[in-house]
């Protein structure tokens, strides 16, 4: 039975030293994220972060076609970072990846460190840094926010795919050309990034339309028209 949904790095693609290295990177990154999330999460953001993790799990199941015979799926780092911040966001993606590997056999067990590094750490960090750089635009109006979400999500996807390139360069089978891998994986992930951008823009736009106070990226912004119904 080959899995046809989501799909992350399996075991055996990178050697043991590289797997161990990225396992250590993942553990360190998740520990830092947990410390950051402890400062960020209040009574309002904690349940939101739980829901964002569940939403990313669900949405990762929805592979969309990008080329004949090739699909892509949301990675979710930018989406999570914009809604609940980079620290809780990285933890959201990590929770999804751990469950997918252990329960759904999606993503190898020894490859878990590499998958967490790519999607939970690199993807989330890239998406968040781009979103923060463009924050003035995001705060202008809803169209600005949606545009920022799209661009941040696109960068998240492409940079996460470069994480795989790094891992393959360090610990992949040297019989295969690295340049061929780079060209294909980055090209395909530019297309997937467009899908990631659309899903992220729609989701962030929808949340901001109903509960702008639950969008981390907009925190601290002056929103005089916001009606607080508590």
């Amino acid at each position: 039975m080959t899995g046809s949904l989501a799909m992350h790095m399996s075991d055996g693609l990178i050697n043991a030293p590289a797997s161990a290295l990225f396992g250590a990177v993942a553990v360190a990154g998740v520990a830092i994220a947990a410390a950051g999330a402890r400062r960020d999460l209040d009574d309002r953001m904690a349940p939101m972060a739980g829901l964002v993790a569940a939403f990313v799990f669900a949405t990762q199941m929805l592979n969309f076609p990008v080329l004949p015979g090739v699909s892509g799926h949301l990675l979710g780092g930018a989406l999570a970072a914009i809604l609940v911040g980079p620290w809780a966001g990285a933890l959201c993606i990590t929770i999804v990846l751990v469950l997918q590997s252990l329960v759904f056999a999606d993503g190898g067990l020894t490859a878990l460190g590499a998958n967490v590094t790519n999607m939970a750490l690199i993807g989330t960090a890239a998406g968040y840094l781009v979103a923060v750089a463009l924050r003035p635009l995001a705060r202008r109006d809803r169209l600005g926010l949606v545009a920022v979400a799209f661009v941040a999500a696109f960068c998240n996807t492409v940079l996460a795919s470069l994480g795989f390139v790094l891992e393959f360069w360090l610990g992949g089978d040297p019989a295969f050309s690295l340049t061929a891998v780079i060209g294909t994986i980055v090209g395909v992930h530019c297309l997937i990034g467009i899908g990631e951008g659309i899903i992220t823009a729609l989701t962030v736009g929808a949340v901001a339309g109903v509960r702008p106070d639950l969008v981390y990226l907009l925190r601290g912004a002056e929103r005089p028209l916001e009606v607080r119904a508590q």
Partner: protein
Amino acid sequence: MNRRTLFFIGFAIVALVLAGVVSYFASSSPDGLDATLERGCDAGACIADNAREHDGPLAGYTIGGDSRLTGVAGVIGTLATLALAFGLFSLLRKRSRS
């Protein structure tokens, strides 16, 4: 029930519908990573040859390999993610003074 709770319930329902229903319409083609690794498989050698699959209770987002139950597997996964994440984030949460 306040409006924030209603929003959270709505968000959870959207996730459950995506995993439980919309998942049946997902593309079954390999994703961008797998497609990259499968390049050259037809010609004899590809990176994907090195991949080792492992098993899991709901392997391949199915129940016992039955892809007709993908929606059920998706709902279970979404609820499991929700429970695990809620638990973890409430442990990490700042306690509000009340």
